[in-house]
Each structure stands twice: as C-alpha cells, then as structure tokens.
C-alpha cells in the first residue's frame, strides 16, 4: 500500500491552475520520481503535500490517514520531510546546527547534549559534510547547502522524504553518490523509507527511480517505470522544445 497518496489535488492561484486534478502515490522502499517541464507544478505539489499550501480541492493521505488539514509541523512529526528547490537552509547557523535543530525536535527521548551531537554528526557524515560542520551554511556552495538540507531532512527520521532537485549544484561525482545514498536508504528495511524525487537530471532520475510520475501543466500525463515513461508520446510532446528536451532524450538513449 502506498504510504503517501495525493488524490485529485487541484491548486489554483487566482486564475492560474497550478495543479489540475493531480494524483500521485508513493510506495515505501522505493524512490519515486516526479518529473515535468519547468512550471509544471512539481514544487507546488510538494508544498501541498508538506502542508505549506492548502489545496483548492483534493486530499492528501499519509499511511491511510487523511492529512489534508494537518499543519506543517504536524506532518513533519508524522514522518514527512523535505528539501527545497530554492534553498531554505538556516543560513545564519552552521551546518552542524542546522542538523541539530532537526535532531532536537524529532528524537523524542530527552537525550543528553552529547547524544544530539552524535546523531547530528552521523547525519552530516552520511552526506559527506563532516569537514564543514562548523561553517555557516550561508557561505557554503549551493551544492553543499543542498546536502545540509538533505542531512537535516534525514535527521527528522522521515518515512517519506521529498527531495526537490537534490542534484542541482552538485558535480557528477557528488550526484552519483547522492543517488547511491538514496538507494541504500530505501533499501534498508529498518528505515521504512519512501522517497519522492523531483529532478531535472534525467540520467539521475532514470538511474534511481523505480516509478515515475510525469506532470505537465498541473496534470499527471503519465505514470510508470522509467522505460514506460520514456516511451510515452505525451511525455515526448510535453518536453518538446523545452530546456529538458535534450536531457530527456539523452536519458532515453542511454
């Protein structure tokens, strides 16, 4: 059963329809992809799922429970964590403190200071940021700041992790190590983790995702495995002429 379901979500801003009857479901133990051209509504869907935006209509279910009306923090406590496309790191705080804020809020037991620090270091270690733990995030390169967000999200011990373009700002090597990390995380049954990934880097998406939803003009136009999606004519039409046109075909060709 899907751990996270967005059912028939409609999101209107004035006259603009950002999401038009979009339904997405995410299964545990898998990385699910969400792709689409710029402005297709991917980030809007993330915002609806995490509670930053109340949908005009439609429902969001987590683990079978309707959470459409639940607050952002509440959803986080239930196990939904995310990163942001446009960075939302705590720029004034160090990388270490960014993670500590999450650890302190999401590990219920009254841990000692030292225990919090240990967990925070562990999370930073996972994303490979040990050596910049003391650096203010505002001064880190974009890619590293994204990794801080990832570490911070992981520190929430999520059951669903929503990643909004984690690879942008990273070089190829870093991107592939992130992909590796994601696959490891979802594969570990102890984590009981599902990942929903928004990404422009098609090779990355095709490499890690088990299922892919394709969003265009707020509508889901295709769902399936990477192979199925790449073969879909509607998807090809949607990407035609866009920035990702070439990227999409590079992905297919590979």
């Amino acid at each position, binding site marked *: 059963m899907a751990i996270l379901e967005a059912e028939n979500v409609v999101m209107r801003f004035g006259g603009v329809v950002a999401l038009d009857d979009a339904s997405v479901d995410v299964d545990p133990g898998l990385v699910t992809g969400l792709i689409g051209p710029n402005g297709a509504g991917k980030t*809007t869907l993330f915002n609806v799922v995490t509670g930053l935006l109340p949908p005009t209509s439609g429902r969001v279910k987590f683990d079978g429970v309707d959470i459409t009306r639940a607050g952002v923090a509440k959803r986080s406590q239930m196990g939904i964590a995310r990163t942001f496309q446009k960075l939302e790191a705590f720029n004034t705080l160090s990388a270490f403190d960014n993670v500590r804020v999450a650890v302190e809020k999401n590990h219920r037991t009254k841990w000692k200071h030292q225990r919090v620090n240990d967990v925070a270091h562990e999370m930073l270690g996972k994303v490979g940021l040990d050596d910049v733990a003391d650096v203010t995030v*505002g001064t880190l390169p974009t890619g590293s700041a994204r990794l801080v967000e990832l570490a911070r999200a992981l520190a929430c011990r999520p059951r669903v992790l929503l990643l909004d373009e984690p690879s942008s700002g990273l070089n190829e090597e870093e991107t592939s190590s992130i992909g590796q990390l994601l696959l490891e995380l979802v594969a570990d049954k102890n984590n009981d983790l599902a990942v929903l990934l928004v990404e422009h880097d098609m090779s990355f998406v095709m490499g890690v995702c088990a299922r892919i939803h394709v969003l265009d003009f707020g509508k889901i136009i295709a769902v399936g495995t990477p192979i199925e999606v790449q073969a879909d004519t509607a998807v090809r039409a949607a990407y035609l002429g866009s920035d990702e046109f070439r990227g999409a075909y590079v992905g297919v060709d590979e």
Partner: protein
Amino acid sequence: MILGLRPSVVITTAVAVVGAVILTIFTWAGSPVTSGTFLVATYTGLFLGALWAMYATGLVVVYTTTGVFNFAQGAIGVFSAFLYWELHVNRDWHSIAALLVVVGLFAPALGVLLDIMLMRRLRTATLVVQLMVTVAVMVLLLALVGVVWEADTARRVPFLFGIENGVDLGPSRLPWHRLIVIIVAIAIAVSMRYLLRRTRIGTAMRAVVDNRELAALNGARPNVVSSTSWALGSMLGALGGILIAPELGLDPATLNSVVIIAFAAAAFGALRNLPLAVVGAMLLGLLRQHSETWLDFGPNFQIAHRSVAPLLLFAVVVALPQARLQVGRVAHHLRRHERYTNWWEGLIGCGVIILLAVMLSGGWLNFKIWDPAPWGLLELNSANAALAMALIGCSLVPLIGWAGQLNFAPLAFAGFGAFVYLKLAGDTASGYWIPLVGLLCAPFGALVALPAARLRGLYLALMTVALAQAMSLIFFPHPSVIPRTKVGLQFPDIELFGITFDDRRGFFMLLVCTFAIFVYALVLLRRSRFGRRWIAINDSQAASATLGVPVVWTKVVVYAVSAAIAGIAGVFWATVAGNLDSAQSFDLLIGFEAVLLVAAAGVSIPLAGIFLIFKPLFTGLAARLEEAGNVDYLVTFLDQLVIFGPGLMAIGMVFNPRGAIFEMGRGFSPILPWRKDARAEIAAENAQKREPEIGELGLERPFTPEEVIAIDRRLGILDEVVPKEGYGNSRS
C-alpha cells in the same frame, strides 16, 4: 460563509459589533441626540477619516509596489508641513506656489532620494532591517524638524481652501475645505487604484514587487518603478501633512502620531487593498467621533476613545487568515564560521564589564581630557538610568536579534513589569519578588504575541506599536495602575541579600552586576537549543515547520522570554527614577529610539543592549567637556550626535546589517590568543579578495558550472528564474 467572507472575518465583525453595542449601553453619556450633533460627529469623522486615508493610501501604494512598509510616512508629512509653513507663512509665498513646490517638487525629490540612497537596497533585506531603516528615517526627519524649526514658538498653517464658507447642513455647516479634502482623498484613492490595476506602469509596479527578475525580463525597469512609487508615496505623505497641519497645529510629535492611525487603516485593507484601507480610515474616523460624542468612559479612561485605532488593528489581526509560510526569503550572511561564545569567554567578558564599570566609576581611568575623579551622585544617577535602559535593551536580543520578530514596545513591557512589581512588593521593595515579576510578565508577552504570531512579521511589529499606544492611552494613565499623585517615591530602594541598595553607588554596582548576569544568561541561551530554534525560524520559517518546529508557538515563547526580561528590567528602570510617569516614559518615540540603537549595535549579540547608554554617555561627556575646557565645537558635535546619532546609526544597517558590535568584534577577536579561527577567517577573506572577479574569468574561457552557480547566487536568481509559486505556470 456569509457574503463570501471568511468565517474569521464574520466572527470577528460580529464580536466587535456586539462588543461595541454592549460598550455603548454601559458607557452612554446621556447627552441629547440631536440631528445637529449627529451630523457634526458624522462629517467630522468622515473628514478625519479622509485625512488618515491619504496617509494610508501612501503606505499601501509603497508597500504593494516595493514591499517596504514605510514607518516614515508620517514624518515625511511633518517635514513637508513645516516646509510649507516656512514658504507660505514665514516667507509669504502664495499658498498655491508653496503647495506646488512642496508637494510637486520637494516631496517627490525626497521620495526618489530615499529610494536611491536607501530603500532600493532594502529589497532583499530582512524585515528587521527594512523597518529599522524606515523608522530611522522617521526619527531623523523629526529631529531635523526640531533643529530647523525650534519649538520656541507656536506655528499655525492656514487652511488650504477657504474654511469660512461651506454647505449648510441643518443647524451646522460643512466648510468647503473639509468637503474638498474628503473628495480629494477619495479621488486619490480611486486614481491610485486605477493606476495600479489598469495602467501599464501600475501593472509593472505590482509585477516588480512580486517578481523583480521576471518583470525586468518583460521590460519593466525595477529602479524606475520603485522610484516612482516612493515619489508617489512621499507626495501623498506631504499632502496629508499639509492638510492635517491646520487641524492639529504644527507640532512634530502630534503630527507624526497620525501615521499610527493610518497603520491601522492600512492593516484594515490587509496592507494591499486600497479601497478597504480607505474604508478602514473612514470607519476609524466615524467610530472615534461618535464614541467621543456619545460615550463616557468615566474619569479614569478619559482618553480611551483615542485608542480606537489600536483596537481596530487588533481586531484586523485577529480576523486575518493564517499567513502562508513563505519560501524563498532566506537572508544571506557574510560570516564564515559560526562560533558560539564559550561559557568561560562569557564569564571573562562579564568580569571585564564589571571591572570596567568599577574603574570608570572610581575614576581610575584617565582619558587625559579631564582629571579623573570618582563619580559623584550626578554621574551615578545618569549611569543608573542608562544601565536600566540597557537592561531593557537585553530583552530585544533574543526577540529581534535571533527570532527576527520586531517589538517597538519594550518600554510598555518594562512598564508592565514595574506595575506588577508595585502590586507584588508594595512598600516592602524586597528584591526577591523580581523573579516572580519575570514569571508574570512572560504570559503577558505571550498574550500580546498570540494573535499576530500566525501572521507575517510586519503585523507583529504593527501590533507592538498598537500595544505601546493602547497601554499609554488606557493602561498606564489609570490611577490605580500607577498612583501618579502620590507624594514621594512609589518605588523604594531594592532590598536584596539583606542589603538595601539605598545609595546610588551601591545601586550602580547592583545594576552593573545585573547587566552582566543578563548578558551571560543571553550567551548561555544562545548556546541552547532554544537559541538555535529561534534563529532557525528567523532564517526560514518554512524549513523550520517542515522539520517539525511549531513556528507560531516558538514565536509566542520568544515573546514571553523577551517580556520576562523586559519586565525584570522594568523594575530596575522604575526604581532608578523612583516613579513611573505615563507621559514621559511610554512615549513611542523613546521606544523607537531604543530599538534603533540596539539594532544598530548588532541586535543578535548579547551585549547589544549596552548601546542604550549612548545618549546619557554623550550628554554627560558633553557636559563634562563644557565644564572642563569649553571645547565648543566638540560639545556641539556631541549634542548633535545625541539628536541624530540613533537614526544615522540605524541607517547604517543598510550597509552593515549585522551591526557595530559585530564589526568591532571582527576586528578585535583575532587579537585574542585562543581565537585561531578568527585569524583564519581574516586570512581567508584576504585570500578571497585577491581572487579575480568572476566577470574577468568569463572573458578568457567559458564559465565552469561552479562559476555559473556563483554568478547565479550573486544575481540572487539561483537555479530558476521563476522562484515564486503561482506565477510559474508559463514556461520561461
């Protein structure tokens, strides 16, 4: 849903109406209801509403088009009114000529100047910096008015249009001047609405604030647009000032206070809706006139009807829907390494503070300007008053400095603390009550923050302005709050640990130690999970919420902590004076100035409160110099510094948002032997300076992906040109 209104609006309106009816029944003055009285109250209310609407229109226009809420709107009006007086009355210009010069030339020039010099740079600044700078402009303009046009004589501005004739309405008469003002105010609001909604420049103006880059790509020139807005806003302020001056008399503080009513009116229109803002202003005028005419709040609440504006603001804040957590407003900072002050560094620092205080007051430091002598009662008295203010300043550090929530009413919180202490301790003056004062002030702070914490920070800032005003209008003047006529001291000397601090030297040491303890407590608080969490909600509320931090609750807690600190400080503050006086102590401008100074000091730093000794320090220094050697130019300089210093320093935040103490610390910390990190940071910065500019590199070889990112970051556009939801459906 009724009439398509949100339930919160309907409920609040219903509660307000029912409350008003009950209030009316209980406070009915019993004066005869005649058509004349009713008419006078009605059109006077409409006229006042029209004047306030003019200010509110200016506020809304500037806010919708530049995103900056202009606290200086009233001060622009004050300055313009004085300038108009100078030209028209003092220099005998024709009124039309003077009006054209002030509203048509001076005001737009001032607006454009402000935009180019300051406001344009505030686009990406935090709310704290934005508001601080406009408040600083306000304080500076008022100070300038005070210096140019001294208060040694009363001035009057004649009515712009004739007031001798008018429309006869039954037993009373509506003079042409007022009718014209009402019409003009509505016409201005309508034409501004038309300008913003229906014209090309208006569309560009609104587009620029929503998405500057996108608007620029579509051909709007953001700088031209923002200058136009500021010119317009400034003209409206000037016109409002000139029209209201004949009604109130030319007095800077009185004229400036009008703007607070305009804040409430603008908030009624949710800061962006012009027609609603005008309706709000009219409603305020009618409510105030009619309540003044028909209601009697008893001898102890004589001026309560003037608190209509704060109350309306409060109702609006309650009725507004919860704000969405905004994404994409993360501030950028310069500092490379985050470093906590160690607990032992904090201790040493506090020791140094105490030592310095002892040495200074003992006359052991020789500055070679005058003979050092132990401080007399005079110096100690000034120092005590200054230190008490510095204690109040400490309350702003967690609130403004870390959580990024504004509070313009620290003195209202302090006064509340003093009030609580007075009720608790009575005449015993035992210092052991002081912690309890803190505990009781905390829920008060929470209560104030609760309605506005759901909203954007600006509403909280406005709420505190309303709080300060409402407290000084309703709460503090009440005789049972502070028995003002009592002869002698209301606040006797504090007794603590068996010692009565009855002489000024002893009290000075008590204050110094208390200040050191406050600073040290702040250092520890900053190191705690609370400090981290507060900074987190300041940096990104959206991200904090997605990590499970309850944003609203966290804001309420930080207000409570701040109120507790301010309340405790208030006990010392009141004890220094021996009295609390409602007129003097709760003047909003004094609160504004205190907040400005702390902000300019670098409000995120625990020591920032010390800047509140600024004024007494330089006043005292000037007096000392005058006595010692008559260094005239220096004395004059210091006097002017006291008047203009806070404003100028706060304006410096445009260029250095982290404040003076932070910069001093950067210079000073590498000297400390154990601060390797500080030396490394300086070295790294120097190395960075030697690196060639990105632009030069691009000429010789293609950009690497990292450089593209660096360019994007510097341009503030990062990876996408479309950062905002809702406008993102078109493909770029």
